[in-house]
Structures are given as structure tokens and as C-alpha cells.
């Protein structure tokens, strides 16, 4: 799942060097609109992120946990 998030970030033009679960999206330059773009990319891959969960996603680990709940 971490690889998928990494490739998702790369596809959307964000840096992924040294990416860990603790990496904060803000530090990668992902703002609220960027996060929406990431969730739309995820939707195309078959994952749904409920809108109310979006504000809870601050780190890569947060996203992985939400995605884990999807699986």
C-alpha cells in the first residue's frame, strides 16, 4: 500500500524521497486542493475516501489507515 501511495504522489508531481508513514503531506507541498486531487486519483484506482475523513488526513500514515479501512 505504501508503494501505491508513493507512486500516487509521484504521478501528481510531489517529491517522495525519504517517504515514511510520519511524513506530513504539508511538508511535501500537498495542500487541501492537492489532497482532493490525490483522493480523486485513488477513486480511479477503486478506493473511496469519505469526505469527512479528508480533514483527518495529515500524514502518509493517516492516509494508509483510511485506505486500510477501505480494503
Amino acid at each position, binding site marked *: 500500500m505504501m508503494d501505491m501511495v508513493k507512486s500516487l504522489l509521484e504521478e501528481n*508531481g510531489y517529491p517522495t524521497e525519504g517517504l515514511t508513514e510520519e511524513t506530513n503531506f504539508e511538508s511535501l507541498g500537498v495542500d487541501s*486542493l*492537492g489532497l482532493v*486531487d490525490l483522493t*480523486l*486519483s485513488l*477513486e*480511479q484506482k477503486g478506493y473511496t475516501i469519505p469526505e469527512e475523513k479528508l480533514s483527518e488526513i495529515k500524514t502518509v500514515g493517516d492516509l494508509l489507515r483510511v485506505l486500510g479501512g477501505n480494503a
Partner: protein
Amino acid sequence: MNWQLCEKTFAIVGSGDIGKATARALEQEGAKAILLSRKSEHCLDVTDEESFKQYGSWSKILDGLVYTAGITVDKPVGLLTLADWQRVIETNLTGAFLTAKHFYMALKPNSSVVFLSSIVAQWGNIGQAAYSSSKAGLEALMKTLAKEWARKGIRVNAIAPGLVNTKMTTELPQMVVDGFTQHTLLKRLAEPEEVANVICFLLSPLSSFMTGQVIYVDGGFFTA
């Protein structure tokens, strides 16, 4: 002039006279034009969100998107029913919103989106409360999208023609057509191809520093 459109792919929503003229102009430039409408091979009903889902897997394949779908119900406000109002808003404005929402992921970075507005968005017009309001809303939608999508280099603009020689115009009372023509510096209607040419310019990299704009293709209507 080289429009730099060759081998690019564009989706055109709405297969009215302006949509078809745009598709022809793009194809003449060597581009691929995908017409989407209820009557096209690529079927799309802009009033039905379900209809968009068949295109949900399109990812970064479009160099541009044009929204030309539109209808009008022309009556003075006193005679306009809620159903009339809703029908026009649903196609002209809500359909544009759904198109933007569902085709966003299909757009490549640095692509271009063009909405077909009208001079009545700013001018208003007797008997066109629903149509002019829908087009004014469309221009606000365009400006919002220009702001939201600039981060990906996606440009979003609108063109606002005056009266164009289309099927929709032939349904207007002659008196209305004559009134518009008299008020237009060039004293005639636009041909669909003249509108399509400006759409092609906005789709082309030749307009690469233009976004959030409404371009008037009005024969001098607003200057008169």
C-alpha cells in the same frame, strides 16, 4: 498559422452547430475531436450524473475540453415556470459543473477548458431570465475552476458570442434577431465557424498565458 493542435485529443460536450463546427475545425488541424451528447456515438446526457460514470476511467487523455451544451426557454419572467427555469439551469449550468467535475481527471496537465457563454450573461435580455442567468453562473464557474486548476497548469476560459447563425437562433422571433443585428457593429450574425475559431485559439498553446477570461465574439455588440 500553426495552431499546434495536431495529434491532440479534445472532448466537445454538446453537438449543436457550434460544437460540430469546433469538432470540424479541430479535425482540420489534425486533432482528434470526441463529440459527447445524447445523440453522439459517445453518449452523454449532461442532465444525468449517472451518464458521466462511463467516462470515469479516462485518465490524463484530454488536451482540452469544450462545453457547448445549451438550451433556452424564452419567456418573460411572469410566464416562465419553475420547470422552465430548472430545465435551462440544469443543462446550461449544472451540466457544465458535472462535466468539469467528472472530466477533471481526464485532463492532462497544461490542458485547456472552454465554456460557451453568451453576451446575455452580462447584458441580460428580455425573455431570457433563465438563459442569461445560466450563462452568468457559467462564467462564475469558469473563474472558480481557473483558480482551482491553475495549480496543474490547466487553463479555463469562456467565450461569449452574440447571436450566432444556429438552429437555436432560427427559433427566435425575427424581431429579436433584427434587434440584435442592428445593435451589432458588423450588422450580421456570427457564423458557427467564427465562434469555433476562437474556441480553437483558446484550446491552442497560442493562448498559453490566458486563463479566467471571457472573450467576446460579438461583432462589436458591446462597443455599439
